[in-house]
């Protein structure tokens, strides 16, 4: 009791013990508050049903050479392009070391005539133009993003403009010779 009433004259021993209790309980409190916060933060991450949004199957047979279609996967547009021989050779001829995001064309396709990509500009998420025959295709004959002017080549690689990365390739597999499963 004397300690409590007059801490200044108390033994330094008691003070250290009290300090320790104060720091220890504060630390436990802070860690506890942090742990309690996590469920709130994590509840904003994709929910199980969103994650489960499974896969998309695409039949490639009707897509003629030089044509492209856009399908939806996980709420995102997927570009599927049946490339012409010219487009393939243009994509393969590029000196990889000169690229902003160096990738060979072979790294980006499973079969050279089929280019499958997420059709979302890696700058700020707009959908690049170039799927329809009348669309502007940019300086490299691939895709052109109207939002801030990114140019992609016939392999979907970034060549000019503010985007930092190539158009992403989603996980996909050929289920038969003429159909793929994305996701």
């Amino acid at each position: 009791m004397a300690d409590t009433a007059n801490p200044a004259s108390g033994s330094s021993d008691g003070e250290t013990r009290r300090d320790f209790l104060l720091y220890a309980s504060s630390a436990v409190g802070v860690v506890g508050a942090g742990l309690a916060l996590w469920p709130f933060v994590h509840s904003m991450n994709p929910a199980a049903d969103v994650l489960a949004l499974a896969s998309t199957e695409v039949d490639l047979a009707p897509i003629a050479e030089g044509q492209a279609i856009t399908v939806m996967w996980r709420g995102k547009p997927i570009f599927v392009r049946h490339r012409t021989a010219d487009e393939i050779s243009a994509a393969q001829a590029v000196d990889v070391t000169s690229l902003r995001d160096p990738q060979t064309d072979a790294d980006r396709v499973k079969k050279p005539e089929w280019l499958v990509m997420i059709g979302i500009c890696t700058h700020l998420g707009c959908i690049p133009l170039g799927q329809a025959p009348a669309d502007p295709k940019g300086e490299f004959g691939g895709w052109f993003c109207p939002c801030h002017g990114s140019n992609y080549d016939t392999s979907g690689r970034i060549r000019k403009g503010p985007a930092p990365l190539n158009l992403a390739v989603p996980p996909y597999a050929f289920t038969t010779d003429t159909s793929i499963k994305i996701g």
Partner: protein
Amino acid sequence: MSAPSNNKVVKWVDDRLPIFTMMKHSAIDYPTPKNLNYWWNFGSLAGLMLVIMILTGLFLAMNYVPHTSMAFDSVERIMRDVNYGWLLRYLHANGASMFFILVYIHIFRGLYYGSYKAPREVLWWLGLVIYLLMMATGFLGYVLPWGQMSFWGATVITNLFSAFPLVGEHIVTWLWGGFSVDNPTLNRFFPLHFVLPFVILGVVVVHVWALHSVKSNNPLGIDMKTPQDSIPFHPYYTIKDLFGIGLFLMFYLAFVFWAPNFFGEPDNYIPANPMVTPPHIVPEWYYLPFYAILRSVPDKLGGVLLMFGAILILFVLPWLDTSKVRSCKFRPIYKWFTILFLVNAFVLGYIGAQPAEGTMLLVGQICTVWYFLHLLVLTPVIGWLEKPKPLPESISSPVVKKSGEAV
């Protein structure tokens, strides 16, 4: 301190909770510089606008549905079927623009008359916090009608965070609650848009608290020294504020009734389509100067950092400005640079609405450099070199001398 009335009930309450004393102290007796001009009306106008936004928003929320399949239609139903729904929505949508006009004028008033300088630094910070919260609220609100601009604005702005290395993609997925802007995004934006204005309200209370503890600045930028320099808030400034409100409401309602879509984008009357980006995406006008800064940098992360930096740098303005004199009235050189800074902001705003290419891009880059040059270099240097004009002895002395008699 005794109750401001002899009424028994008032006295009884006031003895237990001195709320009447407080109100009398801060809204009636509050000593205010007697030389305030009309630029000092914009604070109370912004406060009024916040109240209007909360009220109209609350009633809109009673008919709005935050689901991707119904949001657009529920807003159209508000416009067509809900009694006076069109009025509530146009008051709210134009109110957002009015709010920003008022706050921009309010901020520039502070820049011109040096209101950010000691002892008002914390007051200035709180103002900037309100401004940041307003930007967030306006952005979230604009997403709610789920039109094309709502959707693509949300996509571009949330993607800004993907510029940060390593954590960027995770932050964006977390903001979206999925892999693209979709229903979980819209669903969470609604309650956030609902609650942020109340956070703003809380910060406004602290902002006014800080104001009342350091008192208002004034066009001369010198402190109040004697009671002669001040007048009580009521009735002098209550009536002046009311007069300002009358004028402002005419301006605001003219848009609501005669040009309700003046500030809007026609593309936002097209329902959101995740598969088609509109050819020309523009944010709401009040973000344009910062959007221009973002686009003037050819690097993604660099642009994002510079854009956020443009606002954050204002927090240290009180220390960047080295002059001992507050008001530009007495600063023959800095005055013109401050006006030029405003012009520069307008040019940036104009550039922000144009496609980013050719001369437009170049002008935007020059203006961006000027924005930072002004704050980081010119402001400290001019503060050192400039010889200010002599300050009057007190707020009342110029008046007293002119009329040749004591007031």
